[in-house]
């Protein structure tokens, strides 16, 4: 009665002689697609920069108002050489990372644990909506009064910008666990905690990571807004200072560094995602 349904499939996937195997061909196809996407992105960016550079000749009012790619590059080089670029990036990066980490940790734990009790989640719902609708910028003055003008207030701003989003996305993931799969777990004799650990948490991972990617930007905004209010270092400080001195290319230069920071963090989250969800890699 053992019908070995697998054998034919296994044989088919073996490479036959020098002919490239279907697996290798699929790999090459994916690679080619990736290269095409990247090349197009570079082209679009280059075209934008060329148009921008042409429209803002050196010394023109347009160059003053909008900066120019060459001037921005000049500031970037200068900032890299005098070390302020690395210092500011490190300060803001640290604030962002801490806020990102704490906000997501607290938000995700709360969001997942709300799955446990329909009663508590109902009670909490309007409060979460109310908190989520507060513009975090409006809190900045209070946060500075509470936490001072140092690192802690920026981390607090960053955390606050992240926590509600993390809570909502992880709760959505938790309640999205399939009802029939919960039934299955029950018929297998699972306790509520086992259902939570073996089904609800893994089933929420996709939503949790979507939240993580979204909150990289929010954490960064929180940190930079905090720096706007009061600070002596960081990218927000650099942007604020250059802006008040009307050195617009320098504002853009600091923005470029901010974007780079966001890209690095997003890339890191993606790496961790692939590490934690290996089943998605094979698909």
């Amino acid at each position, binding site marked *: 009665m053992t019908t070995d*349904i697998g054998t034919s499939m296994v044989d088919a996937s073996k490479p036959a002689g020098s002919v490239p195997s279907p697996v290798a061909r699929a790999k090459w196809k994916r690679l080619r697609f990736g290269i095409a996407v990247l090349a197009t992105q570079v082209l679009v960016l280059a075209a934008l920069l060329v148009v921008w550079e042409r429209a803002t000749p050196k010394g023109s009012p347009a160059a003053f108002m909008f900066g120019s790619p060459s001037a921005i590059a000049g500031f970037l080089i200068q900032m890299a050489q005098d070390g302020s670029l690395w210092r500011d990036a490190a300060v803001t990066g640290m604030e962002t990372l801490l806020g990102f980490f704490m906000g997501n940790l607290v938000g995700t734990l709360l969001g997942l644990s709300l799955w446990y009790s329909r009663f508590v989640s109902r009670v909490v719902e309007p409060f979460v909506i109310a908190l989520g609708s507060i513009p975090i910028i409006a809190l900045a003055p209070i946060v500075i009064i509470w936490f001072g003008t140092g690192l802690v207030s920026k981390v607090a701003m960053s955390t606050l910008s992240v926590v509600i989003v993390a809570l909502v996305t992880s709760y959505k993931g938790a309640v999205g666990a399939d009802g029939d799969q919960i039934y299955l777990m029950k*018929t*297998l004799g699972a306790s509520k905690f086992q259902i939570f650990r073996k089904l609800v948490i893994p089933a929420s991972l996709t939503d949790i990571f979507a939240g993580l990617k979204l909150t990289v930007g929010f954490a960064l905004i929180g940190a930079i807004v905090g720096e706007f209010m009061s600070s002596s270092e960081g990218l927000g400080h650099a942007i604020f200072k250059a802006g008040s001195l009307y050195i617009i290319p320098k504002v853009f230069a600091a923005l470029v560094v901010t974007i780079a920071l966001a890209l690095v963090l997003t890339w890191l989250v993606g790496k961790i995602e692939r590490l934690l969800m290996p*089943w998605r890699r094979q*698909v």
Partner: protein
Amino acid sequence: MSVEAATHARPGEGEAVNGTALPLVVEHVAKGYDLNGQVVPVIADLSLTLRKGEIVSLVGPSGCGKTTLLNTLCGLLAPDAGRIRWHGRQVVGQPQNVGYMLQKDLLFPWRTALANTMLGLEIRGVPAAEAEDRSRAMLDQLGLHGFADHYPATLSGGMRQRVALARTLVNDPDVLLLDEPFAALDFQTKLLIESDMVSLVRKGGRSMLLITHDIEEAVSIADRVIVLTRRPTAVKAAYEIELGSDRADVISLRENPDFSRYVRRIWADLDVAIQ
């Protein structure tokens, strides 16, 4: 041999087996859903029994309440009235040693075929090494040798349903409750899995309650076919299926002339029920 609706159309008689507790006895169970404050009755008054080692098929018109019945039997829904006894006892919550399988395979995408199979053993705290050995052996028995480390996304529909079957059988259940488990598969795949399943169930002396839309499937597999009326549902008729001794060979059974007589008879019953 005449193919007549047996007197078992009045169920409940089967319980009178002296002393030995039947795996499942259902007495006058009723169940309705609350829709906007109004109770919609789904199960009217339903009684049936499942004997040890017996395979019973439930057929009934679409939407009559078969899935609701199954979920009620497993304690996932509470009946509004009536009694459900597992091995002679009414249980609170989920009965033990009952395997539950749906049309959807319900495999966890983050677990490999092996880890999915191990789920029930893991929950019951069976040591990991033993759980793995048993699960591997079960996968091998179901023709999935070499696929233990595959994630569900890389398996075909038939293979996924085999993993789901392995996940059910590895717990060594006394009773299997199945809700159209193979309805989504193509005919050949379905026949092959079914015949594997039936021989494993018969060999292990297990009992099985199989819900299906497919009357041929019901007749080829079951010792008894119960026909349900439309909603609110109750038992309409029951047929003892007598098709010779080798019931494990569900494929060649279909050539038995009595086979098609049973099928026609049940078809007629079901037609009446639909009107």
